[in-house]
């Protein structure tokens, strides 16, 4: 686990040096976005109000704990990422269109995205640690530069641009070689699940979406690189 302190905008060289399991702290401007931001710019064609490649080439899948203290003045108390798998259908296009070098998210994304997009664009996936250390990340937020589309999308879903200092720690889940820390973790724990399932009878009444003995299948299927269901 190497530790890196990186300045945003991230350079391709800096990003290509990172490997899964490395720890990253960031300095500079990070912007947020969830489904409504992706829909707005990629599906409805609204123009991006700032040059992300130059200003903020790090997107965080986040809706901060934050409020508008007075008109135009915002405060963030805590922030962390939301589960990223559900943005699989937008992320590759977003990265290519806006020159994104890092996605800060939760739980990683389908390994196919790392292999097919990250390797060629020079992008990494940084997962938030513990999935909920939002107070610690809140300390890394120096201020809110701007909140775009608050009226259209609502405050949590709006695109926040925040200034950060020693913002982290994040763990590299997907790197430019296409490697996936999540996939490695799943492969490592699957034998233990197989042991636990050994000798257990199936439930008499089946249910859609249940995990049977097929440990390759994940509940989050349905992204880019979707595998056909087995069995």
């Amino acid at each position, binding site marked *: *686990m190497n530790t890196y302190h990186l300045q945003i905008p991230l350079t391709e060289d800096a990003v290509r040096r990172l490997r899964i*399991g490395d*720890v990253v702290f960031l300095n500079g401007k990070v912007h947020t976005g969830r489904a*409504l931001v992706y829909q707005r710019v990629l599906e409805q064609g609204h123009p991006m109000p700032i040059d992300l490649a130059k200003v903020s080439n790090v997107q965080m899948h*986040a*809706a*901060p*704990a*934050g*409020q508008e203290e007075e008109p135009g003045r915002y405060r*963030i*108390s*805590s*922030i*962390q990422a*939301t*589960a990223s*798998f559900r943005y699989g259908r937008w992320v590759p296009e977003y990265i290519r269109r806006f020159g994104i070098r890092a996605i800060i998210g939760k*739980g*990683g994304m389908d390994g196919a995205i790392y292999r097919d997009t990250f390797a060629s664009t020079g992008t990494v996936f940084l*997962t938030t*640690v*513990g*999935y*909920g*250390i*939002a*107070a*610690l*990340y*809140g*300390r890394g937020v120096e201020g809110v530069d701007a909140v775009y589309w608050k009226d259209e999308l*609502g*405050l*949590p*879903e709006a695109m926040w641009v925040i200034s950060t200092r020693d913002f982290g*720690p994040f*763990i590299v889940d997907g790197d430019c070689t296409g490697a996936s820390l*999540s996939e490695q*973790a*799943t492969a*490592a*724990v699957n034998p*233990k*699940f197989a*042991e*636990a*399932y050994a000798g*257990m*009878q*199936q*439930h*008499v*009444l089946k249910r859609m979406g*249940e*995990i049977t003995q097929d*440990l390759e299948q*994940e*509940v*989050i299927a349905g992204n880019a690189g979707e595998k056909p269901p087995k069995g």
Partner: protein
Amino acid sequence: MLKAEWIEQAAYEAHRLAATTHPPDVQAALARSLERETNELPKFVMKAIVDNSRVAREDQRPICADVGVLRVFVVAGNEAAVDGGFVALEQAIRCATVRITKDLALRSNRVHPISRANPGNNLGVFAPNIDYRFEPDADWVELVAVHKGGAFGSDFRMMVDGDGLNGVRKGLVDAIAEFVRRGLTCPPVIIGVGIGGTKDQAFSIAKQAAVLRPIGDRHPEPGIAALEDELFELANSLGLGAMGYPGTGGYALDVHVEIAYTHSALTPLGIHQLCQAARRGVVRIHRDGTIEPRSAPAWFSDHHRRAGV
């Protein structure tokens, strides 16, 4: 007579504690999990989780930015009277919810389910949820604020009489396997298992078992307490640490089981998993106006469970 302003003050304090302060049993359990962990990656994660818990208390920041769906469980003494009645109590809880949202800059997390319109104050249709139960021989009212996310980790299935205990065990491993990959449940977690009752009851008592019982608490029926121990061991036999990485720290901080008498042919099974940001704040309002923060909720009692049949 309990004054509405005391209720509002207590509800505000319960929300503040829930948002910013891990209960003492959770703090201790997280520290034990960090101690047990020997693998580098999950150890790094556990240390960050413990640091975050301290920073949230020091800075009065929300432990988790997903403040969940704010809700309040009310334990009302049978002899307690509220000035203005329980409608005034509900109004006080709603006012406190709006105030805490502003003061701690909580995420405005409650939106219309179809239009996604956001009123910005964590109020809305049926929001915040307020659930009641009544306790005999008491003249106090206790408020338990719970802030919990909700996308992942919950599971329901209808078991039939042929499934037996095996069905409960497999249901638990399924719920872990479904959600632990990529850490969607944010482990280490507290697991609540509801067995029996009506369908909706199995799901509700599972949630309450996860969020309203302190770590280490055991069910009063010895057979159920033994089942809790067994399922706790099962959940921690899977080689999982924090974030679901391979590790020795353990997946679960505890497993709590609640049962309810059920249909003779069927056994509904509910499972909920409360993430490491296990947020509950407990405050009791006494008749003399004392507002007392407490370490654990009084939600479950022999009376509430109708023990003894």
